[in-house]
């Protein structure tokens, strides 16, 4: 493989930053959640790249575990969004103001 490993890590860093901007800027809870998924995937890409760099598979196993955790997290998160939507009829995070001081 002739591509330097850092190229993949840079792509992963850019995807992570885009996901961060999504979490900070967007209002729709579902889109925020998708941005979190993007961040998780960016970190997975970095793990697999480092696994390739260090010539062992521990990074890939960790990426595998993070996929399992992400699957569980998506299921619980979407259930929470559905529950909030049922109470407030809105998926915008601006409308969840009950805890505002």
């Amino acid at each position, binding site marked *: *493989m*002739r591509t330097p*490993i*850092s190229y993949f890590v840079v*792509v992963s860093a850019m995807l992570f930053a885009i996901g961060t901007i999504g979490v900070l800027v967007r209002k729709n809870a579902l889109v925020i959640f998708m941005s979190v998924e993007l961040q998780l*995937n960016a970190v997975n890409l970095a793990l697999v790249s480092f696994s390739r760099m260090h*010539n062992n598979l521990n990074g*890939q196993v960790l990426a595998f575990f993070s996929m399992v955790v992400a699957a*569980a997290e998506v299921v619980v998160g979407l259930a929470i969004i559905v529950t909030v939507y049922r109470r407030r009829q809105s998926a915008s995070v601006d409308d969840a103001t009950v805890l505002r001081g």
Partner: protein
Amino acid sequence: MPLDQVVFWVFAPISVGSAIAMLLQRNAVHAALFLVVNFFTIAVFYLVLGASFLFAVQIIVYAGAIMVLFLFVIMLLGVDREESLVERLRGQRVIGITLGVGIALELIVAIRAGIGFATKAPANFDQVANEGGNAEALSRVLFRDYFFPFEVTSILLIVAAIAVVVLASRQRRSVTKAQAASEADEAAV
């Protein structure tokens, strides 16, 4: 130009571009579809990096199952309306984008300091780490070194499944007086 470089330079712009497009879409369904494109490009990167098992898992679990779940919830809630661009917190968007760009620059500087931009991966990955094929080598590591964490994840999945059933079931199991009162108030309003 070697093949893996061609693949990288074709798919890296698609990957970053689809992520930015996801950010700019005001419609949640379109954002989800761009995220699917992004997941596919990440799967291609896995293939180039010698992780063919994760390539398959990425497509099946992320681009398949998780995104179908997302689209299902979007359709179920009917939130495919466009979101408003009014800022509740003044300057939130500008500060958010500034911080995001800042974290990107910071990470790139850290990558440069940590591994350098020119470090090549070792050439004998398929002989040393991926001996006997990626799936076999991965399962060897997973079921020897990481067997206990693997079992713990099964508990995690069961807990998640139960949590979803509890959260999403419509009937009230035990309605306290406060809850009933607040609901009565909401009904009155």
